[in-house]
């Protein structure tokens, strides 16, 4: 078995046969090895600079996604459609829909704040504790933005 980054990966290739209701073999396919991405990532993560960049990006993505997910959950809990929410903040319905469906690459903070307000929520910037900063190997300037109801 190959070893990359201290992690053993089982490279697999096996045959799958699907059977129809009449008992006939309908699909026979050789499954592909789809582990290259993981093996490459694990190998690259041995570089401390690469790992730091990866972890920082992952944190930023998670924070942005969490805020949008929380807003969408609030909206759903309140039974408000995206179109109605857009009307409440005087925005085009498509801009709100894009925000919640990965169709907008850079969520605008003013829009996020307006949506939070319309949903009876607010945005906060919460400094991490020193312990949390150490844990995330932060550079001392990380902030956590959360939508709170």
């Amino acid at each position, binding site marked *: 078995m190959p070893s990359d980054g201290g992690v053993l990966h089982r490279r697999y290739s096996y045959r799958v046969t699907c059977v129809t209701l009449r008992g006939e073999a309908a699909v026979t396919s050789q499954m*592909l090895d789809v582990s290259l991405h993981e093996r490459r990532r694990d190998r690259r993560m041995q570089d401390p600079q690469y790992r730091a960049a990866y972890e920082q990006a992952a944190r*930023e993505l998670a924070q942005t996604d969490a805020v949008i997910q929380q807003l969408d959950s609030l909206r759903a809990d309140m039974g408000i459609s995206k179109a109605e929410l857009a009307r409440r903040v005087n925005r085009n319905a498509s801009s709100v829909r894009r925000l919640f469906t990965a169709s907008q*690459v850079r969520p605008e903070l003013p829009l996020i704040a307006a949506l939070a307000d319309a949903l009876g929520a607010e945005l906060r910037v919460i400094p991490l504790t020193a312990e949390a900063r150490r844990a995330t190997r932060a550079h001392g300037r990380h902030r956590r933005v959360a939508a709170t109801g």
Partner: protein
Amino acid sequence: MPPRDRGQRRPHGPPGQDANEQLPWAIVYYKTPDGTVPVLEFLDDCPGTVDAQFTAVLDAVAAAPPPRFSGGGKWEAMHGTMGGWYEIRLTGPGREQLRLFCLLENGTSDELAKRGLPRPAIAVITGMRKPWRTVFSERDYQRVRELGREHQQNYPRRIAT
């Protein structure tokens, strides 16, 4: 397209794939007929930190595929002639703009098996870069689409392993 606007986010994928929904999607790299892997050539040519960011975005999307993942500000559904494609958008040193172009591989278990995929996947087709405040030409996008068409014609898919 009818709005899917009521209630909680819809789970991804077609019905009957509950087992798959528990797993992150696979991430696969398209391989050309001559054996080159455009996206690996692109990533290997990127600064390490940019490569790491692309990888982090891919992993985040794979963990919560569309429509569950909002995009985190980096993952975007494309439109117009690139409808059906997704891109990851990053800014590199000197404000250089770097993009990865992806297709989603989803379907019933039978369909995925025909493609040789054990579970739904993000197929990363290629990457491109451009200076800040410039645009890719339609010809650039056409080249991307041609690679995507070539990828989708293959049963099973031709991917780097």
